[in-house]
């Protein structure tokens, strides 16, 4: 079956513009996660959705960042008024469930460059 897909693969934008990043999780996966990897850094958790529960937004770095998940499937990460420090690879992952042993399957990421 298809894995996690993300679009676009690359996005170049100007400082101050808004961007939307899309994630299509694996069908049937109830949990969806967003992470980012800045240059030379590890992967940083941003937000995750589990079924119909309220999302865990504890990793969002500022109120310019938001995400939604429609119909329990596709998710969109929105960054408003982008700044140069937002430049990073944004990774989406999904899993069947959340738990200690859950394996998260990652998409290829969206490389965001803010000029």
């Amino acid at each position, binding site marked *: 079956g298809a894995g996690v897909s993300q679009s676009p693969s690359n996005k170049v934008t100007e400082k101050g513009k808004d961007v939307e990043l899309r994630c299509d999780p694996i069908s049937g996966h109830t949990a969806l996660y967003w992470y980012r990897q800045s240059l030379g850094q590890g992967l*940083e958790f941003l937000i995750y959705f589990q079924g119909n529960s309220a999302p865990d937004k504890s990793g969002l770095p500022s109120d310019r960042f938001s995400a939604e998940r429609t119909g329990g499937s596709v998710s969109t990460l929105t960054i408003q008024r982008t700044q140069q420090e937002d430049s990073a690879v944004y*990774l989406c992952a999904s899993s069947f469930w959340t738990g200690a042993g859950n*394996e998260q399957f990652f998409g290829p990421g969206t490389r965001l460059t803010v000029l």
Partner: protein
Amino acid sequence: DQQVKQNSPSLSVQEGRISILNCDYTNSMFDYFLWYKKYPAEGPTFLISISSIKDKNEDGRFTVFLNKSAKHLSLHIVPSQPGDSAVYFCAAPYAGGTSYGKLTFGQGTILTVHP
């Protein structure tokens, strides 16, 4: 506060030899760990995991060791192959209380296996 640390940014080994990648953690509540491998321009892929009720887990050429008293785990790859060249991340899924899900990652170690 870096709760999962990989203090070696890079490691270079000869094909056929053993690769040892190290990871330290500070949160004593962490009771499950995962290793992910990441190739350039791809998302991380799950490699192997270990629960704190064990001190070793083996899968083919990959073995993870956990030393709870030292809050240290290591990934051994033997024999190493050129195709193992990638960035390796250790991660913990514990999210607080009785909650698991979002992964806390180390900074990653770049492994290069020379033919």
